[in-house]
Protein backbone atom coordinates (compact mmCIF):
# COMPACT_ATOMS: atom_id res chain seq x y z
CA UNK A 1 0.00 0.00 0.00
CA UNK A 2 2.73 2.43 0.98
CA UNK A 3 4.73 1.50 -2.08
CA UNK A 4 1.79 2.32 -4.30
CA UNK A 5 1.42 5.66 -2.61
CA UNK A 6 5.11 6.41 -3.17
CA UNK A 7 4.85 5.48 -6.84
CA UNK A 8 1.72 7.56 -7.36
CA UNK A 9 3.37 10.53 -5.71
CA UNK A 10 6.39 10.21 -7.94
CA UNK A 11 4.22 9.93 -11.03
CA UNK A 12 2.29 13.06 -10.14
CA UNK A 13 5.50 14.96 -9.46
CA UNK A 14 6.67 14.03 -12.95
CA UNK A 15 3.35 14.80 -14.60
CA UNK A 16 3.05 18.25 -13.08
CA UNK A 17 6.64 19.03 -13.77
CA UNK A 18 6.30 18.33 -17.46
CA UNK A 19 5.04 21.73 -18.50
CA UNK A 20 4.99 20.91 -22.17
CA UNK A 21 2.98 17.75 -21.84
CA UNK A 22 0.65 18.70 -19.03
CA UNK A 23 -1.67 20.92 -21.08
CA UNK A 24 -1.97 18.22 -23.72
CA UNK A 25 -3.33 15.78 -21.24
CA UNK A 26 -5.55 18.14 -19.27
CA UNK A 27 -6.75 21.47 -20.55
CA UNK A 28 -6.37 21.19 -24.31
CA UNK A 29 -8.45 18.05 -24.70
CA UNK A 30 -11.26 19.66 -22.78
CA UNK A 31 -11.15 22.81 -24.88
CA UNK A 32 -11.02 20.66 -27.97
CA UNK A 33 -14.08 18.75 -26.92
CA UNK A 34 -16.05 21.95 -26.70
CA UNK A 35 -14.82 23.19 -30.06
CA UNK A 36 -15.46 19.93 -31.81
CA UNK A 37 -18.91 19.67 -30.40
CA UNK A 38 -19.81 22.77 -32.33
CA UNK A 39 -18.99 20.74 -35.40
CA UNK A 40 -21.34 17.95 -34.50
CA UNK A 41 -24.07 18.45 -36.99
CA UNK A 42 -25.39 16.38 -39.81
CA UNK A 43 -28.36 18.57 -40.19
CA UNK A 44 -29.22 18.82 -43.81
CA UNK A 45 -30.63 22.14 -44.78
CA UNK A 46 -30.04 24.70 -47.49
CA UNK A 47 -29.87 22.02 -50.12
CA UNK A 48 -28.94 23.71 -53.35
CA UNK A 49 -31.45 23.19 -56.06
CA UNK A 50 -30.82 23.37 -59.78
CA UNK A 51 -33.95 23.79 -61.87
CA UNK A 52 -34.28 22.60 -65.41
CA UNK A 53 -37.77 23.45 -66.50
CA UNK A 54 -38.59 22.26 -69.99
CA UNK A 55 -42.30 22.78 -69.66
CA UNK A 56 -42.47 26.43 -68.58
CA UNK A 57 -46.07 25.96 -67.50
CA UNK A 58 -48.12 27.08 -64.54
CA UNK A 59 -47.99 23.63 -62.99
CA UNK A 60 -44.23 23.53 -63.39
CA UNK A 61 -44.04 26.92 -61.71
CA UNK A 62 -46.20 25.66 -58.90
CA UNK A 63 -44.03 22.61 -58.38
CA UNK A 64 -40.88 24.74 -58.36
CA UNK A 65 -42.53 27.04 -55.91
CA UNK A 66 -43.35 24.14 -53.69
CA UNK A 67 -39.65 23.17 -53.69
CA UNK A 68 -38.21 26.59 -53.09
CA UNK A 69 -40.83 27.27 -50.46
CA UNK A 70 -39.77 24.22 -48.47
CA UNK A 71 -37.20 25.04 -45.85
CA UNK A 72 -34.66 22.48 -47.05
CA UNK A 73 -34.23 23.76 -50.55
CA UNK A 74 -32.94 26.97 -51.94
CA UNK A 75 -32.82 27.80 -55.59
CA UNK A 76 -29.29 27.98 -56.84
CA UNK A 77 -29.36 27.89 -60.59
CA UNK A 78 -31.58 27.74 -63.60
CA UNK A 79 -30.39 25.17 -66.03
CA UNK A 80 -31.18 24.76 -69.67
CA UNK A 81 -29.23 21.73 -70.75
CA UNK A 82 -27.65 18.53 -69.44
CA UNK A 83 -24.14 19.85 -69.92
CA UNK A 84 -24.80 22.66 -67.51
CA UNK A 85 -26.39 20.25 -65.06
CA UNK A 86 -23.36 17.96 -65.23
CA UNK A 87 -21.02 20.84 -64.72
CA UNK A 88 -22.82 22.13 -61.66
CA UNK A 89 -22.89 18.68 -60.14
CA UNK A 90 -19.22 18.18 -60.89
CA UNK A 91 -18.26 21.43 -59.24
CA UNK A 92 -20.44 20.55 -56.30
CA UNK A 93 -22.55 23.65 -56.73
CA UNK A 94 -25.94 21.97 -56.61
CA UNK A 95 -27.18 18.99 -54.64
CA UNK A 96 -30.26 18.26 -56.67
CA UNK A 97 -31.30 18.99 -60.21
CA UNK A 98 -35.05 18.95 -60.68
CA UNK A 99 -35.95 18.15 -64.27
CA UNK A 100 -39.47 18.95 -65.40
CA UNK A 101 -40.05 17.53 -68.85
CA UNK A 102 -42.15 18.97 -71.61
CA UNK A 103 -45.87 18.30 -71.42
CA UNK A 104 -45.76 18.04 -67.64
CA UNK A 105 -48.84 20.18 -67.33
CA UNK A 106 -50.67 18.39 -70.08
CA UNK A 107 -50.09 15.09 -68.33
CA UNK A 108 -51.45 16.41 -65.10
CA UNK A 109 -54.67 17.45 -66.64
CA UNK A 110 -55.08 14.31 -68.64
CA UNK A 111 -55.19 10.77 -67.44
CA UNK A 112 -51.52 10.27 -68.24
CA UNK A 113 -49.04 9.98 -65.43
CA UNK A 114 -46.83 13.06 -65.38
CA UNK A 115 -43.11 12.36 -64.99
CA UNK A 116 -40.26 14.28 -63.43
CA UNK A 117 -36.64 13.48 -62.80
CA UNK A 118 -34.30 14.09 -59.87
CA UNK A 119 -30.58 14.15 -60.50
CA UNK A 120 -28.97 13.89 -57.11
CA UNK A 121 -25.31 14.25 -56.22
CA UNK A 122 -24.89 10.95 -54.41
CA UNK A 123 -21.27 11.16 -53.29
CA UNK A 124 -22.58 11.30 -49.77
CA UNK A 125 -25.01 8.43 -49.91
CA UNK A 126 -26.78 9.24 -46.67
CA UNK A 127 -27.43 12.78 -47.75
CA UNK A 128 -28.60 11.61 -51.16
CA UNK A 129 -31.14 9.33 -49.52
CA UNK A 130 -32.50 12.16 -47.46
CA UNK A 131 -32.64 14.52 -50.45
CA UNK A 132 -34.59 11.94 -52.35
CA UNK A 133 -37.06 11.50 -49.53
CA UNK A 134 -37.60 15.23 -49.12
CA UNK A 135 -38.04 15.74 -52.84
CA UNK A 136 -40.46 12.86 -53.23
CA UNK A 137 -42.54 14.03 -50.31
CA UNK A 138 -42.78 17.53 -51.77
CA UNK A 139 -43.80 16.16 -55.13
CA UNK A 140 -46.40 13.96 -53.52
CA UNK A 141 -47.82 16.93 -51.66
CA UNK A 142 -47.94 18.93 -54.82
CA UNK A 143 -49.89 16.27 -56.60
CA UNK A 144 -52.29 15.79 -53.74
CA UNK A 145 -53.10 19.46 -53.74
CA UNK A 146 -53.52 19.52 -57.48
CA UNK A 147 -55.65 16.47 -57.68
CA UNK A 148 -57.44 17.15 -54.43
CA UNK A 149 -58.96 20.16 -56.15
CA UNK A 150 -59.94 18.28 -59.25
CA UNK A 151 -61.14 14.98 -57.92
CA UNK A 152 -63.22 13.90 -55.00
CA UNK A 153 -61.99 10.37 -55.18
CA UNK A 154 -59.47 10.45 -52.37
CA UNK A 155 -57.95 7.21 -51.22
CA UNK A 156 -57.47 6.47 -47.53
CA UNK A 157 -54.18 7.84 -46.38
CA UNK A 158 -51.88 6.92 -43.53
CA UNK A 159 -50.08 9.87 -42.07
CA UNK A 160 -46.86 9.13 -40.27
CA UNK A 161 -46.39 11.35 -37.24
CA UNK A 162 -42.84 11.46 -36.04
CA UNK A 163 -41.97 11.80 -32.39
CA UNK A 164 -38.39 12.18 -31.32
CA UNK A 165 -38.07 11.09 -27.75
CA UNK A 166 -35.30 12.13 -25.40
CA UNK A 167 -34.14 14.77 -27.81
CA UNK A 168 -37.21 16.29 -29.43
CA UNK A 169 -35.33 19.15 -31.06
CA UNK A 170 -32.80 16.78 -32.56
CA UNK A 171 -29.96 18.68 -31.01
CA UNK A 172 -26.76 16.95 -32.04
CA UNK A 173 -24.60 18.78 -29.57
CA UNK A 174 -26.18 17.43 -26.44
CA UNK A 175 -25.63 13.95 -27.73
CA UNK A 176 -22.23 14.34 -29.23
CA UNK A 177 -20.58 16.12 -26.33
CA UNK A 178 -20.55 13.31 -23.78
CA UNK A 179 -19.48 10.93 -26.53
CA UNK A 180 -16.64 13.13 -27.72
CA UNK A 181 -15.53 13.62 -24.12
CA UNK A 182 -15.38 9.87 -23.66
CA UNK A 183 -13.46 9.49 -26.92
CA UNK A 184 -10.88 12.14 -26.15
CA UNK A 185 -10.43 10.83 -22.64
CA UNK A 186 -9.93 7.28 -23.86
CA UNK A 187 -7.50 8.43 -26.53
CA UNK A 188 -5.37 10.27 -24.00
CA UNK A 189 -5.47 7.56 -21.38
CA UNK A 190 -4.43 4.75 -23.71
CA UNK A 191 -1.65 6.86 -25.10
CA UNK A 192 -0.16 8.21 -21.89
CA UNK A 193 -0.30 4.86 -20.23
CA UNK A 194 1.45 3.08 -23.10
CA UNK A 195 4.00 5.82 -23.68
CA UNK A 196 4.83 6.34 -20.06
CA UNK A 197 5.74 2.72 -19.43
CA UNK A 198 7.69 2.39 -22.67
CA UNK A 199 9.56 5.56 -21.90
CA UNK A 200 10.61 4.33 -18.48
CA UNK A 201 11.88 1.22 -20.19
CA UNK A 202 13.72 3.22 -22.84
CA UNK A 203 15.51 5.38 -20.31
CA UNK A 204 16.23 2.41 -18.07
CA UNK A 205 14.50 3.42 -14.86
CA UNK A 206 12.25 0.39 -15.04
CA UNK A 207 15.27 -1.82 -14.73
CA UNK A 208 16.23 0.03 -11.59
CA UNK A 209 12.78 -0.60 -10.16
CA UNK A 210 13.01 -4.23 -11.18
CA UNK A 211 15.95 -4.82 -8.85
CA UNK A 212 13.98 -3.46 -5.93
CA UNK A 213 11.59 -5.64 -3.93
CA UNK A 214 8.69 -3.77 -5.57
CA UNK A 215 5.92 -6.15 -6.63
CA UNK A 216 4.66 -6.21 -10.18
CA UNK A 217 1.11 -5.29 -9.20
CA UNK A 218 2.38 -2.42 -7.08
CA UNK A 219 4.32 -1.01 -9.97
CA UNK A 220 1.33 -1.33 -12.28
CA UNK A 221 -1.14 0.19 -9.84
CA UNK A 222 1.34 2.99 -9.26
CA UNK A 223 1.12 3.71 -12.96
CA UNK A 224 -2.62 3.25 -13.36
CA UNK A 225 -3.87 5.35 -10.48
CA UNK A 226 -2.45 8.73 -11.61
CA UNK A 227 -3.85 8.28 -15.09
CA UNK A 228 -7.11 7.10 -13.65
CA UNK A 229 -7.29 10.44 -11.85
CA UNK A 230 -6.42 12.34 -15.03
CA UNK A 231 -9.16 10.45 -16.86
CA UNK A 232 -11.61 11.64 -14.25
CA UNK A 233 -10.44 15.19 -14.66
CA UNK A 234 -10.86 15.20 -18.42
CA UNK A 235 -14.25 13.56 -18.29
CA UNK A 236 -15.87 15.68 -15.63
CA UNK A 237 -14.33 18.92 -16.83
CA UNK A 238 -15.68 18.13 -20.29
CA UNK A 239 -19.12 17.29 -18.97
CA UNK A 240 -19.21 20.39 -16.78
CA UNK A 241 -18.29 22.64 -19.69
CA UNK A 242 -20.83 20.80 -21.79
CA UNK A 243 -23.46 21.67 -19.24
CA UNK A 244 -22.41 25.31 -19.33
CA UNK A 245 -22.07 25.70 -23.08
CA UNK A 246 -24.66 23.34 -24.46
CA UNK A 247 -26.85 22.67 -21.47
CA UNK A 248 -26.59 18.96 -22.07
CA UNK A 249 -29.37 17.05 -20.39
CA UNK A 250 -28.61 15.05 -17.26
CA UNK A 251 -31.72 13.03 -16.68
CA UNK A 252 -30.16 10.12 -14.83
CA UNK A 253 -27.89 9.88 -11.85
CA UNK A 254 -24.41 11.36 -12.15
CA UNK A 255 -23.31 9.08 -9.32
CA UNK A 256 -24.13 6.13 -11.52
CA UNK A 257 -22.19 7.67 -14.38
CA UNK A 258 -19.23 8.14 -12.04
CA UNK A 259 -19.48 4.53 -10.96
CA UNK A 260 -19.37 3.44 -14.57
CA UNK A 261 -16.50 5.80 -15.35
CA UNK A 262 -14.47 4.61 -12.39
CA UNK A 263 -14.69 1.04 -13.61
CA UNK A 264 -14.47 1.87 -17.27
CA UNK A 265 -11.15 3.69 -16.95
CA UNK A 266 -9.34 0.49 -16.10
CA UNK A 267 -10.07 -0.76 -19.59
CA UNK A 268 -8.18 1.91 -21.59
CA UNK A 269 -5.51 1.87 -18.91
CA UNK A 270 -5.12 -1.87 -19.30
CA UNK A 271 -5.05 -1.53 -23.08
CA UNK A 272 -2.30 1.05 -22.84
CA UNK A 273 -0.37 -1.12 -20.46
CA UNK A 274 -0.80 -4.12 -22.69
CA UNK A 275 0.44 -2.18 -25.70
CA UNK A 276 3.48 -1.12 -23.69
CA UNK A 277 4.39 -4.74 -23.08
CA UNK A 278 4.11 -5.59 -26.76
CA UNK A 279 6.33 -2.91 -28.26
CA UNK A 280 9.91 -1.78 -27.97
CA UNK A 281 9.93 1.94 -28.70
CA UNK A 282 7.71 4.91 -28.06
CA UNK A 283 7.10 5.22 -31.79
CA UNK A 284 5.78 1.71 -31.99
CA UNK A 285 3.69 2.32 -28.92
CA UNK A 286 2.28 5.40 -30.56
CA UNK A 287 1.29 3.72 -33.79
CA UNK A 288 -0.18 0.71 -32.09
CA UNK A 289 -2.20 2.91 -29.75
CA UNK A 290 -3.25 5.04 -32.66
CA UNK A 291 -4.51 1.96 -34.48
CA UNK A 292 -6.75 0.95 -31.62
CA UNK A 293 -7.85 4.46 -30.83
CA UNK A 294 -9.00 5.18 -34.35
CA UNK A 295 -10.81 1.85 -34.53
CA UNK A 296 -12.52 2.52 -31.25
CA UNK A 297 -13.52 6.04 -32.18
CA UNK A 298 -14.91 5.31 -35.61
CA UNK A 299 -16.73 2.19 -34.57
CA UNK A 300 -18.24 3.34 -31.30
CA UNK A 301 -21.56 4.31 -32.79
CA UNK A 302 -21.27 8.02 -32.23
CA UNK A 303 -20.51 9.03 -35.80
CA UNK A 304 -21.59 6.04 -37.80
CA UNK A 305 -24.25 3.57 -36.80
CA UNK A 306 -23.21 0.36 -35.08
CA UNK A 307 -26.28 -1.54 -36.18
CA UNK A 308 -25.42 -1.33 -39.86
CA UNK A 309 -22.06 -3.00 -39.44
CA UNK A 310 -21.72 -6.57 -40.68
CA UNK A 311 -21.94 -9.31 -38.07
CA UNK A 312 -18.23 -9.99 -37.85
CA UNK A 313 -17.54 -6.33 -37.25
CA UNK A 314 -20.18 -6.16 -34.56
CA UNK A 315 -18.56 -9.18 -33.04
CA UNK A 316 -15.13 -7.52 -32.93
CA UNK A 317 -16.79 -4.38 -31.74
CA UNK A 318 -17.74 -6.12 -28.52
CA UNK A 319 -14.16 -5.37 -27.56
CA UNK A 320 -14.59 -1.67 -28.23
CA UNK A 321 -14.81 -0.01 -24.82
CA UNK A 322 -16.08 3.23 -26.32
CA UNK A 323 -19.11 1.52 -27.75
CA UNK A 324 -20.25 0.77 -24.22
CA UNK A 325 -19.45 4.23 -23.00
CA UNK A 326 -21.43 5.89 -25.78
CA UNK A 327 -24.42 3.71 -24.98
CA UNK A 328 -24.16 4.31 -21.27
CA UNK A 329 -23.92 8.06 -21.83
CA UNK A 330 -27.14 7.97 -23.77
CA UNK A 331 -28.85 5.69 -21.32
CA UNK A 332 -27.96 7.64 -18.20
CA UNK A 333 -27.78 11.24 -19.38
CA UNK A 334 -30.67 11.26 -21.83
CA UNK A 335 -32.98 8.47 -20.88
CA UNK A 336 -32.37 8.38 -17.16
CA UNK A 337 -31.72 4.66 -17.01
CA UNK A 338 -30.86 3.37 -13.57
CA UNK A 339 -28.64 0.70 -12.15
CA UNK A 340 -31.14 -1.93 -13.28
CA UNK A 341 -30.48 -1.10 -16.92
CA UNK A 342 -26.81 -0.22 -16.55
CA UNK A 343 -25.55 -3.19 -14.58
CA UNK A 344 -24.91 -5.38 -17.65
CA UNK A 345 -22.57 -2.66 -18.91
CA UNK A 346 -20.85 -2.40 -15.56
CA UNK A 347 -20.47 -6.15 -15.39
CA UNK A 348 -18.94 -6.25 -18.86
CA UNK A 349 -16.51 -3.48 -17.98
CA UNK A 350 -15.44 -5.28 -14.81
CA UNK A 351 -14.75 -8.45 -16.76
CA UNK A 352 -13.00 -6.55 -19.54
CA UNK A 353 -10.94 -4.49 -17.11
CA UNK A 354 -9.81 -7.47 -15.10
CA UNK A 355 -9.09 -9.49 -18.22
CA UNK A 356 -7.01 -6.92 -20.03
CA UNK A 357 -5.08 -5.91 -16.93
CA UNK A 358 -4.30 -9.49 -16.01
CA UNK A 359 -3.09 -10.04 -19.54
CA UNK A 360 -0.88 -6.97 -19.27
CA UNK A 361 0.48 -7.95 -15.86
CA UNK A 362 1.18 -11.43 -17.12
CA UNK A 363 3.06 -10.06 -20.12
CA UNK A 364 4.81 -7.48 -18.04
CA UNK A 365 8.13 -9.06 -17.21
CA UNK A 366 10.11 -8.26 -14.15
CA UNK A 367 12.56 -10.97 -15.07
CA UNK A 368 13.33 -12.54 -18.42
Amino acid at each position, binding site marked *: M*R*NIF*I*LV*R*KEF*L*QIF*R*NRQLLPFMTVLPVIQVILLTFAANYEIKNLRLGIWDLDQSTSAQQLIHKFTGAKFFQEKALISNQKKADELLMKDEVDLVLVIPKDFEKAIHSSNNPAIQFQINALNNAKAGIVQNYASAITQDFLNEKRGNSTLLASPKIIPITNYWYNPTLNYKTIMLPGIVAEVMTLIIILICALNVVRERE*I*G*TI*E*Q*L*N*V*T*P*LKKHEFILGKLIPFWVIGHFIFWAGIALGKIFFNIPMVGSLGLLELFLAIFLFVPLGIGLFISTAVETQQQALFTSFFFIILFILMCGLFTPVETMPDWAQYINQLNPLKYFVEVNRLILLKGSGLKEIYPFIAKMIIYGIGINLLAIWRFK*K*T*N
Partner: protein
Amino acid sequence: MEPVVKVENLSKKFGEFIATNAISFEVNKGEIFGFLGANGAGKTTAMRMLSGLLTPSSGQAFVAGFDVATQAELVKKNIGYMSQKFSLYEDLTIQENIEFYGGIYGLSRQEIKDRSKGIVDKFQLASVKNKLVKTIPLGWKQKLAFALALIHKPKVVFLDEPTGGVDPITRRQFWDLIYEAANDGVTIFITTHYMDEAEYCDRVSIMVDGLIKALGTPSELKKSFDVDSMDAVFQLLARGTANK
Protein backbone atom coordinates in the same frame (compact mmCIF):
# COMPACT_ATOMS: atom_id res chain seq x y z
CA MET B 1 32.67 -18.03 6.49
CA GLU B 2 29.90 -18.52 3.95
CA PRO B 3 30.56 -16.54 0.72
CA VAL B 4 28.07 -13.74 -0.03
CA VAL B 5 27.99 -14.48 -3.74
CA LYS B 6 28.35 -18.05 -4.90
CA VAL B 7 28.16 -18.91 -8.58
CA GLU B 8 28.28 -22.42 -10.06
CA ASN B 9 28.34 -23.07 -13.78
CA LEU B 10 26.04 -20.16 -14.46
CA SER B 11 25.05 -19.84 -18.15
CA LYS B 12 22.76 -17.64 -20.18
CA LYS B 13 21.75 -18.31 -23.74
CA PHE B 14 19.94 -15.88 -26.01
CA GLY B 15 18.64 -18.26 -28.62
CA GLU B 16 21.72 -20.03 -29.94
CA PHE B 17 24.08 -17.38 -28.65
CA ILE B 18 25.80 -18.12 -25.33
CA ALA B 19 26.34 -14.80 -23.57
CA THR B 20 27.63 -16.30 -20.33
CA ASN B 21 29.17 -19.74 -20.46
CA ALA B 22 29.22 -21.83 -17.25
CA ILE B 23 31.00 -19.33 -15.04
CA SER B 24 31.84 -20.20 -11.42
CA PHE B 25 33.27 -18.08 -8.64
CA GLU B 26 32.70 -16.94 -5.07
CA VAL B 27 32.84 -13.51 -3.48
CA ASN B 28 33.30 -12.96 0.25
CA LYS B 29 31.82 -10.44 2.57
CA GLY B 30 33.32 -6.97 2.29
CA GLU B 31 35.32 -7.92 -0.77
CA ILE B 32 35.66 -5.67 -3.82
CA PHE B 33 35.27 -8.00 -6.77
CA GLY B 34 36.18 -6.64 -10.19
CA PHE B 35 34.62 -7.95 -13.35
CA LEU B 36 36.63 -7.17 -16.47
CA GLY B 37 36.12 -8.01 -20.10
CA ALA B 38 35.85 -6.48 -23.54
CA ASN B 39 32.55 -5.09 -24.84
CA GLY B 40 30.07 -7.91 -25.26
CA ALA B 41 32.05 -10.32 -23.08
CA GLY B 42 28.96 -11.02 -20.97
CA LYS B 43 29.59 -8.95 -17.84
CA THR B 44 26.27 -7.18 -17.77
CA THR B 45 24.47 -10.42 -18.52
CA ALA B 46 26.14 -12.14 -15.57
CA MET B 47 25.36 -9.23 -13.29
CA ARG B 48 21.74 -9.12 -14.36
CA MET B 49 21.38 -12.78 -13.55
CA LEU B 50 22.89 -12.24 -10.12
CA SER B 51 20.50 -9.42 -9.36
CA GLY B 52 17.42 -11.34 -10.40
CA LEU B 53 16.73 -9.42 -13.61
CA LEU B 54 17.46 -12.37 -15.87
CA THR B 55 16.71 -16.03 -15.26
CA PRO B 56 19.75 -18.24 -15.78
CA SER B 57 19.54 -20.81 -18.56
CA SER B 58 21.47 -23.29 -16.46
CA GLY B 59 23.70 -23.42 -13.43
CA GLN B 60 23.13 -21.95 -9.99
CA ALA B 61 23.90 -18.77 -8.16
CA PHE B 62 23.33 -17.68 -4.57
CA VAL B 63 23.40 -14.07 -3.50
CA ALA B 64 23.22 -13.25 0.22
CA GLY B 65 22.24 -16.85 0.74
CA PHE B 66 19.30 -16.88 -1.66
CA ASP B 67 18.95 -18.68 -4.97
CA VAL B 68 18.67 -16.09 -7.77
CA ALA B 69 16.50 -18.37 -9.88
CA THR B 70 13.87 -19.25 -7.31
CA GLN B 71 14.17 -16.56 -4.63
CA ALA B 72 14.68 -13.51 -6.79
CA GLU B 73 12.45 -11.33 -4.61
CA LEU B 74 14.49 -12.12 -1.49
CA VAL B 75 17.70 -11.48 -3.39
CA LYS B 76 16.36 -8.07 -4.40
CA LYS B 77 15.85 -7.05 -0.79
CA ASN B 78 19.51 -7.62 -0.09
CA ILE B 79 21.22 -6.06 -3.04
CA GLY B 80 21.81 -2.68 -4.55
CA TYR B 81 22.21 -2.22 -8.29
CA MET B 82 23.54 0.56 -10.38
CA SER B 83 22.95 -0.16 -14.01
CA GLN B 84 25.14 0.67 -16.95
CA LYS B 85 22.37 2.90 -18.21
CA PHE B 86 21.83 5.91 -16.03
CA SER B 87 18.76 5.26 -13.93
CA LEU B 88 17.77 8.12 -11.68
CA TYR B 89 14.65 10.07 -12.53
CA GLU B 90 15.99 13.10 -14.32
CA ASP B 91 12.79 15.05 -13.90
CA LEU B 92 12.77 14.65 -10.13
CA THR B 93 15.00 16.56 -7.73
CA ILE B 94 17.81 14.91 -5.79
CA GLN B 95 15.73 14.99 -2.64
CA GLU B 96 12.74 13.45 -4.41
CA ASN B 97 14.85 10.68 -5.87
CA ILE B 98 16.21 9.85 -2.44
CA GLU B 99 12.74 9.82 -0.90
CA PHE B 100 11.40 7.74 -3.74
CA TYR B 101 14.00 4.98 -3.66
CA GLY B 102 14.10 5.00 0.13
CA GLY B 103 10.36 4.54 0.16
CA ILE B 104 10.42 1.74 -2.37
CA TYR B 105 12.92 -0.16 -0.21
CA GLY B 106 10.50 0.11 2.67
CA LEU B 107 12.47 2.48 4.86
CA SER B 108 10.48 4.28 7.50
CA ARG B 109 9.94 8.01 7.22
CA GLN B 110 12.51 8.65 9.93
CA GLU B 111 15.08 6.40 8.27
CA ILE B 112 14.56 8.19 4.96
CA LYS B 113 15.02 11.50 6.66
CA ASP B 114 18.21 10.42 8.42
CA ARG B 115 19.75 8.78 5.41
CA SER B 116 18.88 11.54 2.99
CA LYS B 117 20.50 13.95 5.42
CA GLY B 118 23.50 11.62 5.55
CA ILE B 119 23.75 11.52 1.77
CA VAL B 120 23.27 15.25 1.35
CA ASP B 121 25.94 16.00 3.96
CA LYS B 122 28.42 13.45 2.72
CA PHE B 123 28.27 14.62 -0.89
CA GLN B 124 27.82 18.29 -0.01
CA LEU B 125 24.57 18.40 -1.95
CA ALA B 126 22.76 20.79 0.38
CA SER B 127 22.79 23.59 -2.17
CA VAL B 128 21.47 21.49 -5.04
CA LYS B 129 19.23 18.99 -3.34
CA ASN B 130 16.13 20.68 -4.71
CA LYS B 131 17.49 20.84 -8.24
CA LEU B 132 16.30 18.50 -10.95
CA VAL B 133 18.74 15.67 -11.49
CA LYS B 134 19.03 16.49 -15.18
CA THR B 135 20.64 19.80 -14.27
CA ILE B 136 23.54 18.45 -12.19
CA PRO B 137 26.90 17.23 -13.62
CA LEU B 138 27.37 13.60 -14.56
CA GLY B 139 29.90 12.89 -11.80
CA TRP B 140 27.44 13.98 -9.15
CA LYS B 141 24.69 11.94 -10.71
CA GLN B 142 26.87 8.84 -10.58
CA LYS B 143 27.76 9.40 -6.93
CA LEU B 144 24.13 9.98 -6.13
CA ALA B 145 23.15 6.79 -7.95
CA PHE B 146 25.73 4.92 -5.88
CA ALA B 147 24.42 6.40 -2.66
CA LEU B 148 20.91 5.37 -3.66
CA ALA B 149 22.04 1.84 -4.46
CA LEU B 150 23.22 1.69 -0.83
CA ILE B 151 20.27 3.46 0.76
CA HIS B 152 18.70 0.31 2.16
CA LYS B 153 22.04 -1.05 3.48
CA PRO B 154 22.27 -4.02 1.12
CA LYS B 155 24.68 -6.90 1.65
CA VAL B 156 25.92 -6.77 -1.93
CA VAL B 157 25.99 -3.93 -4.39
CA PHE B 158 26.36 -4.46 -8.12
CA LEU B 159 27.95 -1.60 -10.01
CA ASP B 160 27.90 -1.83 -13.80
CA GLU B 161 30.53 0.54 -15.18
CA PRO B 162 29.76 3.18 -12.56
CA THR B 163 32.58 5.46 -13.62
CA GLY B 164 31.99 5.52 -17.37
CA GLY B 165 32.55 9.02 -18.74
CA VAL B 166 33.57 10.49 -15.38
CA ASP B 167 36.66 12.70 -14.90
CA PRO B 168 39.74 11.26 -13.07
CA ILE B 169 39.26 13.28 -9.91
CA THR B 170 35.63 12.30 -9.51
CA ARG B 171 36.63 8.75 -10.34
CA ARG B 172 39.12 8.80 -7.47
CA GLN B 173 36.43 10.15 -5.13
CA PHE B 174 34.07 7.47 -6.33
CA TRP B 175 36.57 4.80 -5.36
CA ASP B 176 36.92 6.35 -1.92
CA LEU B 177 33.21 5.81 -1.52
CA ILE B 178 33.55 2.23 -2.65
CA TYR B 179 36.28 1.55 -0.10
CA GLU B 180 34.24 3.13 2.60
CA ALA B 181 31.25 0.93 1.79
CA ALA B 182 33.47 -2.16 1.67
CA ASN B 183 34.86 -1.26 5.08
CA ASP B 184 31.29 -1.19 6.38
CA GLY B 185 31.01 -4.79 5.25
CA VAL B 186 29.21 -4.28 1.98
CA THR B 187 30.33 -6.63 -0.75
CA ILE B 188 31.14 -4.75 -3.95
CA PHE B 189 30.72 -6.31 -7.37
CA ILE B 190 31.96 -3.95 -10.04
CA THR B 191 32.56 -3.99 -13.79
CA THR B 192 34.89 -1.55 -15.42
CA HIS B 193 36.89 -0.85 -18.54
CA TYR B 194 39.54 1.14 -16.67
CA MET B 195 42.57 -0.98 -15.90
CA ASP B 196 43.76 1.34 -13.12
CA GLU B 197 40.48 0.60 -11.40
CA ALA B 198 41.16 -3.09 -11.76
CA GLU B 199 44.23 -2.58 -9.62
CA TYR B 200 42.05 -1.21 -6.81
CA CYS B 201 40.00 -4.41 -6.58
CA ASP B 202 40.62 -7.13 -4.04
CA ARG B 203 40.13 -9.74 -6.71
CA VAL B 204 39.31 -9.58 -10.39
CA SER B 205 37.97 -11.96 -12.97
CA ILE B 206 38.49 -11.44 -16.67
CA MET B 207 35.75 -12.58 -19.01
CA VAL B 208 36.30 -13.37 -22.66
CA ASP B 209 33.41 -14.44 -24.86
CA GLY B 210 31.25 -15.53 -21.95
CA LEU B 211 33.99 -17.51 -20.21
CA ILE B 212 36.03 -16.55 -17.16
CA LYS B 213 39.57 -16.73 -18.48
CA ALA B 214 41.38 -15.56 -15.36
CA LEU B 215 40.50 -15.08 -11.70
CA GLY B 216 42.60 -13.89 -8.75
CA THR B 217 44.06 -10.89 -6.97
CA PRO B 218 45.62 -8.33 -9.28
CA SER B 219 49.12 -9.27 -8.10
CA GLU B 220 48.49 -12.99 -8.61
CA LEU B 221 47.30 -12.35 -12.13
CA LYS B 222 50.21 -10.12 -13.01
CA LYS B 223 52.53 -12.73 -11.68
CA SER B 224 51.02 -15.64 -13.50
CA PHE B 225 51.02 -13.80 -16.82
CA ASP B 226 54.44 -12.43 -16.02
CA VAL B 227 53.62 -8.82 -16.75
CA ASP B 228 53.70 -5.70 -14.61
CA SER B 229 50.23 -4.20 -15.08
CA MET B 230 46.62 -5.32 -15.26
CA ASP B 231 46.46 -3.59 -18.58
CA ALA B 232 49.03 -6.02 -19.94
CA VAL B 233 47.13 -8.99 -18.50
CA PHE B 234 44.01 -7.77 -20.18
CA GLN B 235 45.82 -7.16 -23.47
CA LEU B 236 47.14 -10.70 -23.47
CA LEU B 237 43.75 -12.25 -22.87
CA ALA B 238 41.84 -9.95 -25.14
CA ARG B 239 44.37 -10.34 -27.96
CA GLY B 240 43.86 -14.05 -27.59
CA THR B 241 40.30 -13.52 -28.77
CA ALA B 242 41.20 -11.12 -31.50
CA ASN B 243 43.53 -13.65 -33.09
CA LYS B 244 41.02 -16.42 -32.96
